[in-house]
């Protein structure tokens, strides 16, 4: 029971901190809008393979995936902040297991990332994607599932790294390949076969594919069936939660 309370306490802290940062929430509108409106408009005649879909419609689920990816990875920084400002010690000496500390942090960061995702979701009307409540409700669980694993990557990296600068460098090494190879911006049929293999081991590929299937419906020819997408993302989550817990449990 006390472990559950510990997880809840740490979750609440993350969410409170996030909601207090108004500027971050406002700015979270801006970047995806730039992608959707400027990038989307500029590139719309360049691609084939999107079928009957407008390019902006095509990238919309991809931009949601991108937002989840970037925000999740960025949340790893909170661990480094906590360490830098000493707060991590207060948590680590509390009578709460390392697993609960990790889960609390992970759930809190995921909540923040999904809130960002929801904000982008609400921008669908700007590019003319017909989003409604039903589609939203169907997308939400998948968004959460995608986020869990990604947040774990960020937290795991952060647990090995002590400076903000090197976290930034490593983060972009992970972020950009995952993003570009997920098919968020272009159909994967546009890249050479050997590169496609990297896409197939990229969990975000299945996340984006799943979101497209839910949001775009029958006008999108999915890479794999939705239940298969969800299964891959779940396996990824479980693996990353294990890795993250191990990374957090080290004690010298």
């Amino acid at each position, binding site marked *: 029971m*006390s472990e559950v*309370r*510990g997880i*809840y*306490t*740490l979750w*609440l*802290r993350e969410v*409170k*901190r996030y909601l*207090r940062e108004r500027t971050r929430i406002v700015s979270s509108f801006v970047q995806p809008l730039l992608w959707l409106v400027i990038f989307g408009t500029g590139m719309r005649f360049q691609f084939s393979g999107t079928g009957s879909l407008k390019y902006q419609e095509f990238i919309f689920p991809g931009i949601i995936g991108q937002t989840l990816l970037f925000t999740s990875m960025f949340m790893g920084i909170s661990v480094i902040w906590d*360490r830098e*400002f*000493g*707060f*991590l*010690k*207060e*948590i*680590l*000496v*509390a*009578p*709460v*297991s390392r697993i609960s500390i990790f889960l609390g942090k992970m759930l809190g960061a995921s909540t923040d990332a999904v809130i960002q995702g929801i904000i982008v979701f609400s921008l669908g009307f700007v590019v003319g994607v017909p989003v409604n409540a039903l589609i939203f409700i169907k997308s939400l669980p998948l968004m959460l599932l995608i986020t869990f694993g990604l947040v774990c990557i960020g937290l795991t990296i952060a*647990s090995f790294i*002590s400076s903000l600068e090197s976290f930034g460098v490593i983060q972009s090494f992970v972020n950009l390949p995952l993003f570009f190879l997920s098919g968020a911006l272009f159909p994967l049929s546009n890249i050479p076969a050997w590169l496609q293999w990297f896409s197939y081991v990229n969990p975000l590929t299945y996340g984006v594919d799943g979101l497209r299937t839910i949001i775009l419906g029958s006008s999108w020819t999915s890479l794999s069936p939705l239940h298969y997408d969800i299964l891959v993302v779940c396996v990824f989550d479980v693996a990353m939660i294990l890795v993250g817990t191990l990374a*957090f449990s*080290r*004690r*010298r």
Partner: protein
Amino acid sequence: MSYIIETWDLTKKFGTLTAVDKLNIRVEKGEVFGLLGPNGAGKTTTISMLCTILKPTSGTATVNSFDIVKQPAQVRRSIGIVFQDPSVDDRLTGRENLVMHANLYGVSANEQKKRIEAVLKLVELEDRADNLLRTYSSGMRRRLEIARGLIHYPKVLFLDEPTLGLDPQTREHVWTYIRALSKQEDITIILTTHYMEEADKLCDRIAIIDYGKIVALDTPHSLKEKLEGEIITVKTKDAERLSKKLTETRLVDKINIAGDELKLNVKSGHMVLPRVVEMAASSGIYIESVSLHEPDLGDVFLHYTGRAIRTEGGEEYHGLTAIRRRQIR
């Protein structure tokens, strides 16, 4: 006699550096126990092990009769800690920090409110409780951390350099809280410090620690008593030469040199002082100043370690602190 803290050959090595070397201490219930030593002596490493943040390289200890290696969870529940470096969340309010702590330590919801009010009152922060921590001064943060360390009724409270970096007035203030605390609460306090005055004013017993070892352990009073008589401090550029001259006579019990200061342990200061000045004058040694005083803990430290506590270089400290930072993940 049951001890609230007992250590057996507690040792911690960082690579080749032995930070704590076979430490054996016993702390009695209800006392204020001081670990006094220069920066880098191993005080914080000792506390970190007792708090289960660091694992000892060898040896072990019990806190509230729980083993720090085998029963870390029970140990954590029994202790409160105020770290040397700040450890509050400055994006939350004072009260939110306290509530979070209470929840992490499983203080029941009914009790929480009352307890938080009580500890806030103890450190006189009731008025500022709902302000964000980032608006607090460093003294107020310190006080809030002390309050936080008390919420879950710990049996032992660790204060690691509680007044480091505070201005003299705030320091006095914090001392008042610590004294009030040891009276009001059923609690044992372990305090590390490198301020002599702090150890002298607050502690029932003091362990002087240097290079990871205990060099003396007693009440402040008897530590000073062991340095019978008085201390003459002579300031001169020719400290070495004067010290040589003085050893030839039988006037002085012990001589310590700290920079350009000569500390002489003597039985009767008033008798010896004129002789010392006379001897210096006849040998052509220029004395800048002379003073006579009762021994304080600074002299005690010098007596046991042969070094003045404040002249310790900061280098070692940075090295150790850096290592410790890396350990804490």
